[in-house]
Structures are given as structure tokens and as C-alpha cells.
């Protein structure tokens, strides 16, 4: 299948083992600093299975994941860019029995003055503090960039729009 937007399945079980820390106020670890999360771009693919696409089966960042290559070009560094994280995760109750935990980067993700000639349509967010473990795959219409800037603007950090949302029902 083509690159497909999804929360990475490995991320779900890693939440239960405190692999990822989006918060500077985390009490489950001795360190009180948030992990470093990064955003890497991947080329468009027409793969036909879960092992040939950027999708829920991705477990970690690499320059080639499931046969899909990270972009390369002028001023793009392998691994992508650091995601700005100045806001801790938060949660709200949506009913007596349900709630939403959510988190959004606190700034746009920007690749400045790059030339990316091969069409790309995917951003992988991953945890570079924890063996590059995958968090989520985000897709958009295929693009190229020529001596320009690629900007991913974040949605509002709210329970229904945040970039990373985990809900109970």
C-alpha cells in the first residue's frame, strides 16, 4: 500500500513501558527532561503491503524503512530536524468514563533552504533519545522543494485537533 498516516503500533506498547517521555515533569524516570523527538521526510511509494510502506508497521527511524527511502538533497541532513517541544502533554475528561491525552509540537517543523527533487509525501516522527523508536507517520500530498523551505504547520494543541491524541472510550 502507499504511505499511510498512522500511529505506529510499536509506540502503543512502548507507552506502557514508559519508553517515550514528552514531558519535562515526568516522575517515572530519574531524568526530568523530555526526550528529543525528530521529524524525517520519506519519498512517495506505491508499495502494496505493510512491509513496503511508511505506515503503522514502522518501528524505528532509519534511512530506509520498509523499503522506503528517506529524502536526500541539498541542506537536508539524514534524520531530519528536531521537533520543538515546549509544552507538556495534557489530558481532559470527555465523559465519566472517557478522556483524551494529547500533545503537539510547540512550533512548526521547518526544513530551510533545501532542495528535495524526489517526490515525498511522508513525515516520520520518532524518539531520538530512545533508539529512534517510531511515534507516528504523517502523510500529505506529494511535494518537491527547490532551493526553498518546506514547512509543516502544527494543528492547534487541543483535545480534538492535537498532533498526537490518545483516547479512551
Amino acid at each position, binding site marked *: 500500500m502507499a504511505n499511510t*498516516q498512522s500511529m505506529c503500533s510499536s509506540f502503543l506498547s512502548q507507552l506502557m513501558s514508559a519508553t517515550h517521555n514528552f514531558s519535562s515533569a515526568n516522575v517515572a524516570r530519574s531524568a526530568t527532561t523530555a526526550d528529543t523527538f525528530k521529524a524525517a521526510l520519506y519519498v512517495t511509494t506505491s508499495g502494496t503491503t505493510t512491509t513496503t510502506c511508511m505506515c503503522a508497521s514502522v518501528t524505528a527511524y532509519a534511512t530506509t524503512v520498509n523499503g522506503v527511502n528517506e529524502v536526500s538533497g541539498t541542506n537536508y541532513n539524514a534524520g531530519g530536524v528536531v521537533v520543538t517541544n515546549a509544552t507538556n502533554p495534557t489530558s481532559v475528561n470527555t465523559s465519566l468514563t472517557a478522556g483524551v491525552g494529547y500533545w503537539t509540537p510547540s512550533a512548526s517543523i521547518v526544513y530551510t533552504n533545501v532542495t528535495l527533487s524526489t517526490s515525498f509525501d511522508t513525515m516520520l516522527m520518532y524518539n531520538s533519545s530512545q533508539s529512534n523508536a517510531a511515534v507516528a507517520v504523517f502523510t*500529505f500530498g506529494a*511535494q*518537491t522543494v527547490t*532551493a526553498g*523551505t518546506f514547512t509543516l*504547520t502544527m494543528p492547534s494543541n487541543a483535545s480534538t485537533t492535537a498532533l498526537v491524541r490518545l*483516547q479512551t472510550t
Partner: protein
Amino acid sequence: MAIITTTKGDMDDSLLEYKTGNIDNEDEHTTWDEYYLDGELVHRSVHVTLKKTPFTDFTTALMG
């Protein structure tokens, strides 16, 4: 007058042909700016705003 970064180096935008476009659907709002010199693409920037993001729903089993 504005200076544009291009494959030929920084150039005055008055020397270039400008084109723009956009995509707006349920998944994204995307705009792009292109500059051409004698028909050759020398600058293209893209701005994507994601509208729909991955969403994970946890459920719990009832006990008993």
C-alpha cells in the same frame, strides 16, 4: 522588491516569473510558491498544514 533564494543564488524577484498553487481538502491545506527564470524552476517552497492526524483509541475490557 524581494530577494529569493534560487538554484542560481539569491535573485531579485523582479527578474523571475512567479506562480503559486494550493491544495485544500479534509486532510491538509497546502500552498506553494514557485519562481522561474527563463522557464526553468529555480525556487519552490511548500507550506503544509495538517488537518487530520493519526488518532489512537484505547478501550478497556469489562471485568467479571
